[in-house]
């Protein structure tokens, strides 16, 4: 039962032909469009590695059926900034060297970007609460907090 739909990712439109409209957005981005971010971490919405923005709202793409995306604008980590024109959080994460293996970074930066858009001057408690639930197994928490603080206090 193939169907064709169009999704908008980082400003570009892509037509997809799928036989399961319930397939999570994550697999469309990774396997149909060949994107490396977002990432599969749990498939359960528990870790954040798959986070993208839908019309600016951070969502877990591993739990978002492709059929639910509609005409929403999807933004990925690659779409929020580049080395030449970095998002302030990307610049801050580099400045603070806030990564070990870095597999989780997608979730932390994308979630923090949505948080700071809503609360540009987020307090320490708001930052921690806003990032709560994201997983980082290597333990880069202290450096990542410094990076987010650097932007919130800029």
């Amino acid at each position, binding site marked *: 039962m193939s169907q064709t739909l169009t999704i908008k990712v980082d400003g570009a439109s892509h037509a997809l032909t799928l036989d399961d409209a319930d397939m999570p957005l994550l697999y469309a981005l990774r*396997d149909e469009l060949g994107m*490396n971010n977002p*990432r599969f*971490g749990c498939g359960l919405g*528990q870790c954040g590695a798959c986070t993208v923005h839908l019309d600016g709202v951070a969502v877990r793409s591993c739990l978002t059926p492709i059929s639910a995306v509609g005409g929403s604008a999807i933004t990925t980590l690659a779409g929020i900034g*580049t080395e030449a024109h970095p998002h302030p959080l990307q610049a801050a994460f580099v400045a603070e060297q806030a990564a*070990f293996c870095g597999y989780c970074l997608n979730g932390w930066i994308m979630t923090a970007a949505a948080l700071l858009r809503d609360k540009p001057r987020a307090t320490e408690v708001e930052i*921690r609460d806003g990032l709560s639930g994201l997983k980082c*197994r*290597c333990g880069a928490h202290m450096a990542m907090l410094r990076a987010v603080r650097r932007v919130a206090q800029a």
Partner: protein
Amino acid sequence: MNQTTPISLSRRGLLAAGGALVVGFAAPRCATAQAAAKLAARTPDRLSSWLAVQQNGDVIAYFGKIDVGQGVEVAIAQIVAEELDVDFARVRVVMGDTALTVNQGGASGSTGIELGAVPLRFAAAEARRTLLNMAAAAFGVPAANLIVTNGIIASGDRRVSYGDLIGGRDFDVALQWNSVLGNGLTARGVAQPKPPSQYRLVGQSIRRDDVARKVFAERVYVSDIRVPGMLHGRMIRPPVAGATVVSVDAASIAHLKGVQIVKNGGFLGVIAPKEWDAIRASQTLAVTWSDTKPPFPPFEHLHAHIRTAKIQGGKTEFNEGDAPAALARAAQVITADYEWPFQSHACMAPACAVADVRADGVTLWTGTQKPHYAQAGVAAILGRKPEDVHAIWTHGPGSYGRNDSGDAAIDAALLSKAAGAPVRVQGMRHEGHGWDPKGPASTHVGRAALDEGGHIVAMEFATRAFSRTDVDSNESNPQHSLAGQMMGLGFKPTPAFGVPEGAYKFPAKHLSWQSIVPLLDAASPMRTSHLRDPVGPQLIFAYESFIDELAHAAKADPVAFRLQHLPDERSRAVVRAAADTFGWQGRVAASQIASGNIMTGRGIAFAQRGRTLVAIIAQVAVHRDTGRIDTQRFVVAHECGLIINPDGLRRTIEGNIIHATSRSLHEEVKFDSSAVTSVDWLTYPILDVTEAPSTIDIVLIDRPDQPALGAGEASTRPVAAAIGNAIFDATGVRLRKAPFTSERVKVAISIPV
């Protein structure tokens, strides 16, 4: 081998691809076949196996270990640039590609700098000597009269660059190699490396470039590898550990396109052109499993099981004086019993691997931290020669030892062989938690003999635990892989544990361990292997908690008590540094317990790992109503000899503190009689960012007079004891069972002392 030859085209192509693993997939078969052909040429006794200078003067260092995210390649580049007298930016480090690097053991035991950098330091010094001799011959002056600045050799106003001298050609220089592969490999030329007093790059906090690559979504992880014609695989594991496949009903997945079922004994997987179809097939396929008796004891009886199960092996590792006699005639004996749970690597993602098994060779992309051993394991399971297999280490989702990536490599190879096409296999979350090799659960008994004056005259510390190596710490032998075990190749656990290191001095001291037989003599989700600082957290939790109990029994301040029993000056220095930085005021622990809901305390723990020394002071708040522990502050004093990169070291320590705090407060593999039941982040919680400490203050003690020692894991091991000792100080209650979950703490502190 004996003459200097121009770099071959194949080699040149490989060099171009070596730093960016995404490159080259347009024609991977061609490139990998050439790579395999070069394998035999790279032996540790040739300088060209370690270093190359390109025509533009850039330097490539071939490192036979890998970086798990701590930035070790920056330190390697610093060391190479230092010895060669080139700018740091000129050095690129190639890691973990079996066609390009010799087997230095992979990431292993925090030896990246302590052992892994040593041949590279010698090689760089030898390369510099060789280049100076070439320039001396060209200029007709003694080499001693030449000056090197960033790869330019000068004699008066004459100049020649390293690139001019050798660019693009191999060094034709033999090294003295000790004929050992793995961690113990040493190789050196005749050149003497620089004395530390001349260092200008070593000791500088040079930054990692890979952070930017990750932040800008450019880093390619093993799960991002895509090869033309690649299929997607998923494994299917038994619901009851030890069960084997009786039959599968292919009709149950007939609605999914192009799915193949691969079965070999108990090895069962599915392959599909689309990843989502492979996932659905793995979840839908109807499998009849053998009626196997569930093998595991009740979870709550785990430590009782350890105390009564059959012993598999053991050893007295340290015995000084006559501890049994002293205990027998002691005026007082203090005894305490400690328990540590099974723990999971629980990496950010379940392991992934891509294998392309062809008639002309095998290419493996793997996140394992020991790619040379994965090469051997994949060759063995396929019945191929190791040199037929080209293993390309590609960043994985974290690596803290023998996680699930070695098994994924072997699974991918078997699936690719069956499919006749490249196959990417990745686990699902429940497999990442449920089927990775586990850190061993353990029990520890400390006994101390006191004389009439209350002085400690003997210390006995005995461990009884699961072995640390039900499966080896690498995947080179398929008997130590899930696939091999499920195919019936056997199961060969090795008895192993260990005893606390450290310089505490008592008139008599006896340290021993015994390991019990595994829970299941077959492919098991509870099999053990190495997890960050293997057995260190267990041993030091118990040992340093017991030292604290002895201090309390002696009515001594915990810092003063440790100093009293630590004669070694380096050990005393880290304890003092931690105490001074914390602002430690001496008093007996648990002598200032608050009456309100929030009780605060501080605790110290000291540990040695190899020759690296760490003292940690934790300050915690304990919530009387909920049992919640807030780790407010850590102070870490750390001495690992000569420091290569202070900021990199600080971040490595921070990561260890967070990882170990998570393991101390939360982590415990749960299971029922059939299977692991802690299979995701809800059932296996780890430290949340809301629980991260407010501050981690790190004091680095630099010892340029000492060799550079390991730091990747050492600061992991004292964390649980520091927290437990702080909880005792806050509450007067001693927690002898980890992790210190809120439920466990709440119960413990509600019982009257």
